[in-house]
């Protein structure tokens, strides 16, 4: 056999004849190349940006884990009724099991009452809560699912997107007080008995040992260990929201109108959606998209999907303008 690997003046060159018999390999279409390149480049940039932010998160993790152990009383509930489904896992995420922590590798697994999970440095996870909201955990965060609408945030940072109306809110118990959402998007960061609340949409109430503090859309509240509240503003498009956007559960847009994607991207990026004209709006409702945007951040998904349509967008402050493409 080995002899046949070489050219033989009096015999067939088997390597050559096989390659010739097979013919040329299939070349992927240019538009497929471009589209996958756009998506992969977005994933690459997201990944490298996340790694740059890891050092800061490690410091935050150390501080919050040390503080929280002094403050929490725990009653170990067993895993029971399902309260959430794991939508996406990035990096190191662990689930408590039998008194220890085990890596969570399986997306789409369900979490019951009493489930405890934590993200390590560089890790993050998105949960689809059974009430319909999206709960996202940044790196160095630990939570326990106490019930269908009750979550214990021991440390770290969570983001909740709950489109529900008043009365459908979720409650977050923390060492620094209890936060209740009132149909909203917000971020909650807990380090020891200090708390930071950022409200992107709607309203959030924080109950701190009977002291009620309310945060409204566009507000950031920092509540220190003594209960002092410092208010400041935060834009709905601030870069601080980007980690949560990265984890946004992508809708299935295959076979759906472009308007579905535009609505989702606008909401996830904290922007108002504005169509250049009624014609453009009507166009967005009729252009049908094909493909999937799983694991793409909202704006990257929009870049990829609109590239195949005659629509384009521009970001003007807190508005996403949609218009017909000026040149193809």
């Amino acid at each position, binding site marked *: 056999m080995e002899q046949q690997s070489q050219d033989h003046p009096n015999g067939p060159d088997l390597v050559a004849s096989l390659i010739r018999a097979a013919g040329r390999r299939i070349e992927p279409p240019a538009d497929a190349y471009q589209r996958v390149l756009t998506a992969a480049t977005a994933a690459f940039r997201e990944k490298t940006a996340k790694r740059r932010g890891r050092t800061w998160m490690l410091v935050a993790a150390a501080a919050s884990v040390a503080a929280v152990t002094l403050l929490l009383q725990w009653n170990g509930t067993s895993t029971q009724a399902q309260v959430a489904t794991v939508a996406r896992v990035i990096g190191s995420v662990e689930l408590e099991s039998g008194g220890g922590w085990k890596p969570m590798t399986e997306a789409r697994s369900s979490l019951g009452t009493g489930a405890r999970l934590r993200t390590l440095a560089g890790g993050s996870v998105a949960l689809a809560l059974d009430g319909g909201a999206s709960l996202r955990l940044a790196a160095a965060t630990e939570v326990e699912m106490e019930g269908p609408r009750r979550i214990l945030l021991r440390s770290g940072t969570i983001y909740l997107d709950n489109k529900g109306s008043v009365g459908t809110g979720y409650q977050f118990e923390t060492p620094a007080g209890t936060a209740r959402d009132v149909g909203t998007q917000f971020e909650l960061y807990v380090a020891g008995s200090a708390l930071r609340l950022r409200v992107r949409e709607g309203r959030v109430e924080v109950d701190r040992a009977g002291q009620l503090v309310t945060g409204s859309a566009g507000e950031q509240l920092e509540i220190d260990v003594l209960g002092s509240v410092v208010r400041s503003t935060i834009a709905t498009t601030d870069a601080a929201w980007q980690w949560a956007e990265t984890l946004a559960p992508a809708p299935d847009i295959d076979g759906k109108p472009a308007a579905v994607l535009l609505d989702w991207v606008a909401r996830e990026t904290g922007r108002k959606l504005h169509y250049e004209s009624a014609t453009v709006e009507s166009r967005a409702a009729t252009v049908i998209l*094909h493909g999937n945007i799983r694991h793409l951040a909202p704006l990257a998904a929009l870049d990829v999907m609109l590239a195949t349509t005659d629509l384009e967008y521009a970001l003007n402050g807190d508005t996403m303008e949609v218009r017909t493409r000026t040149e193809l």
Partner: protein
Amino acid sequence: MADLVHVDRAVARRILGGDEAAFRELFDRFFPRLYRFALARVGGDPDTAQDIVQETFCNAIERLDSYRGEAALYTWFCQICRNAIADHYRRRQTGSERFVLLEDQPDVRAILEALAAPTDDEPDTGAWRQQVHRVVEATLDALPGRYGEVLEWKYLDGESVVEIARRLELGPKAAESLLTRARTAFHAAISELAVASDELTGALGRSPG
């Protein structure tokens, strides 16, 4: 192989360090190969193949920290691509319609039987050609570096060693040496299939020239 993995580890490190040129180089090297890999496993549906390759790149980049260099980086990408294909079928709940390729089957004898399929009264059928095409394509795609391209330039485009040397900005001696290594690697890969059965020799002998 050890050298290849060493280089691949370095490439992964550069990408994780934010080197966009390294990322782009890897993308250009892997995209056509992974596209063909996926296309063959989704029944030739180009849209699905594109979606799967997109998902493969996004997942692989996301998990690149976990690449330890136990296998070549392309092999590692292929495993992620296989998982994406499995997820695709799971989502569609059409597992029974999955396309199982001969080269994915643990029993390589099946490949050999396919290669040997043409009989005297059925020479060179379309199905046989397709099997040869698929096996050779997969083998060329699995070769390291630019071996696959070099072999195509030589045997499909009929380029001389001097022309290949010019393309690769190498001296003629280096190009000849590269071509020899590419031929040896290709033959070794095909021969691995042959180890399972002596029938391959006969099958290769019957390949249309």
